[in-house]
């Protein structure tokens, strides 16, 4: 199976995540869209690693492992920020969060 199947699937997943992150009103779903985009990038890493001339080099796998760790940290901090903002504004609607102070 050629490599571009995986790459196009990954591009589709990225586009779905991007569309969600750009259009949804709820801050949590925007974060979910960003997670989907990160996952699409990880899939690209793995696909390129698998189809590389020397698959016994494991840099691709290690890159994805580090990327997963960073994405997990990002999700934790992002959701904590959303909870903190919710406490302030009593909403997670992004269109109502329109001031930086107070």
């Amino acid at each position, binding site marked *: 199976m050629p490599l571009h199947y995986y790459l196009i699937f990954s591009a589709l997943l990225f*586009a779905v995540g991007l569309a969600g992150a750009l259009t949804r009103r709820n801050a949590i*779903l925007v974060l979910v869209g960003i997670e989907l985009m990160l996952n699409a990038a990880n899939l690209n890493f793995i696909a390129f690693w698998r189809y590389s001339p020397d698959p016994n080099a494991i840099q691709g796998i*290690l890159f994805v*492992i580090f990327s997963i760790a960073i994405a997990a940290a990002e999700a934790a901090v992002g959701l904590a920020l959303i909870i903190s903002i919710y*406490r302030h504004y009593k909403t997670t609607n992004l269109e109502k969060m329109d001031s930086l102070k107070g």
Partner: protein
Amino acid sequence: MQAAFAIIAALTLVSAIAAMSLRNLVHCALCLAVAFAGLAAMYLQLDAQFVGFAQVLVYIGAVAILVVFAILLTRSGQPVPHSVVSRSWIAGVAIAVLVFCVLTRVILSSSVSQRSLPAKPSPTVREIGNQLMTWYVLPLQVIGLLLTAATIGAVIIAMNERKSAGGDHRVTADQGHGHGHLAAPTGLNEGNATSIASETGSESPAHYPQPEREREVLAK
């Protein structure tokens, strides 16, 4: 091989689209978990077993559950009366479609993408561990530091208004204003703080005084 790829790809895409478009946020979180599972299956199909199981553990086990917790804590589980997409949703979808078209064009015109599958690699977990402990030991430590900082930061961000919510309450009680809705988040904060603190082990309440002081100064 082809059939397995088609099934997994269709499942992942449908659940990703559902996660991005359903009205009920809890359903969105469940569809997100299905999409992550599909991606894990895709990793397994690409002979990256370790990454596949890391995906199951981290994304399905932690991130999806964290999203569910956030949805329940912010009480956005019930459907909203107004539209769930923003006013400029046409522009957002157009940008996403444009990005997809550009990516597809580049992928299809590249010579790399026609590469066929090389022989099956054999990266064992032992090899990955060896590499992590020798050549990649510095990035590993940096990641450890980052995760520690992110965990402590998440706990502090999510609970720094716990005392100050009480402080606000006290101030309003002193001034005689009735901010009855401030009482509700206090219990919410406690539940959240304990749930996160139980994840990270013991968290000392030493972080409280500073934000509270800042809050009171700001309040004045």
